[in-house]
């Protein structure tokens, strides 16, 4: 089982990588950690004439916090971010999501940007990005720009990136104050893609009223799904346990998850509602435990 032949490029600068992507267009693909792309090539689900390996570009690695934003450069290995104290202190939801990705050998090679750009609808980081309101930093031959997470994920394995765009970093806002976070998912086996899951962030005012909330479902549609109706119901509220149960049902009401060999759509929906309730309970409890 081998990938089809390709020409391999290993630029050492973002500008050179962007130049290669621009030159070869649809025939080229950026290679990050390769933990999703290489199996797709090996199974010949995908083939490209050119692979642009980002692994030699030092400026694409590292984590920095400034002005309330955690900037994670795209080629930062998931294992590095998982152990990074700045990540844990600034964006706990990201820290908690990372151990759910694959296995530790996968996270040693897999990158933050690779997972986001691959955009598997059942993966954790896209849902985390949507829940928190992250922004994607993108470079192309015409310059740099940012794309909001809400507009980044277009469909299964499809993003707003053009063939000559390179995702260079993800900017996660560091929610502060009386905040709580949870990510919950159900998978067949440890490390498998989730059948359903949710990433949740809440911020409370001193009277336990929800000031801000982010709820993004994973495995419940072709992209991470922002549960807007549930977010509206939660904003400005101080929900009781019964309310949370109803809002969890509301969160999945408009989803139509697919039937496949792993689970029926109806099962995913049922599990999804349960997970939303669990995540909200945990995130709210955590936020309430922070002194006003």
């Amino acid at each position, binding site marked *: 089982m081998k990938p089809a032949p390709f020409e*391999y490029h290993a630029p050492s600068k973002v500008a050179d990588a962007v130049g290669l992507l621009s030159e070869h267009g649809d025939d080229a693909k950026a290679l990050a950690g390769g933990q999703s792309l290489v199996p797709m090539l090996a199974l010949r689900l995908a083939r490209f004439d050119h692979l642009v390996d980002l*692994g030699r570009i030092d400026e694409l690695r590292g984590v920095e916090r400034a002005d309330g934003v955690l900037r994670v450069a795209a080629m930062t290995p998931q294992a590095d971010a998982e152990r990074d104290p700045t990540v844990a202190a600034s964006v706990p939801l990201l820290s908690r999501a990372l151990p759910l990705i694959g296995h530790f050998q996968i996270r040693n*090679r897999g990158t933050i940007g690779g997972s986001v750009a691959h955009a598997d609808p059942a993966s954790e980081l896209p849902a985390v990005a949507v829940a928190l309101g992250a922004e994607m930093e993108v470079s192309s031959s015409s310059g740099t720009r940012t794309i909001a997470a809400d507009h980044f994920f277009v469909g299964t394995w499809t993003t707003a990136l053009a063939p000559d765009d390179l995702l260079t970093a993800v900017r996660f806002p560091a929610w502060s104050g009386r905040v709580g976070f949870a990510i919950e998912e159900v998978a067949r086996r440890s490390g498998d893609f989730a059948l359903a899951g949710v990433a949740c962030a809440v911020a409370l005012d001193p009277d336990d009223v929800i000031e801000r909330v982010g709820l993004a479902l994973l495995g419940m549609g072709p992209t991470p799904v922002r549960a807007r109706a549930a977010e509206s119901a939660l904003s400005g509220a101080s929900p009781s346990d019964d309310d949370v149960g109803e809002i969890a049902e509301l969160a999945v009401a408009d989803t139509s998850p697919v039937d496949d060999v792993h689970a029926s759509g109806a099962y995913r929906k049922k599990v999804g509602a349960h997970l939303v309730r669990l995540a909200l309970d945990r995130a709210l409890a955590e936020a309430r435990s922070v002194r006003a």
Partner: protein
Amino acid sequence: MFEHDVVLTVNGERRRGRIEARKTLADFLREDCALTGTHLGCEHGVCGACTVIVDGRAVRSCLMFAVQADGADITTIEGIGPADGSLGPVQEAFRQEHGLQCGFCTPGFVVTVQAFLADHPDPDDAEIREALSGNLCRCTGYQGIIAAVRAAADGGAA
């Protein structure tokens, strides 16, 4: 035009190769270095049989092209034990605790455990199970493998 010259350090030895870009690190180790202890099961990142250590980290050698490993330091199952051919402490623990049966998955497990214990010298049972979750074994039912990791950790294998 798709060939590249690479130089890797494998088990302390410099290895040169002229390879196609699409050749995986696993195939390079097996075919070009004749190090056939690294086994290939699924060849798409699920089974863990091909696990090797690249620059200190356990990775799937089927999910990395050899050209990406140019300049890297690799340890395979052949480099885990002492040079005299005797068993290393993790290998010895697998033997003592019946951590293998047919042995196909064993190189991947031993390399995984070696890397895991280096980072977690005193793991609890949940950490051990989590660390093993990326390697498949179809014979043992895993209990002997978990016991072997426990024994290796208690014996200070790392």
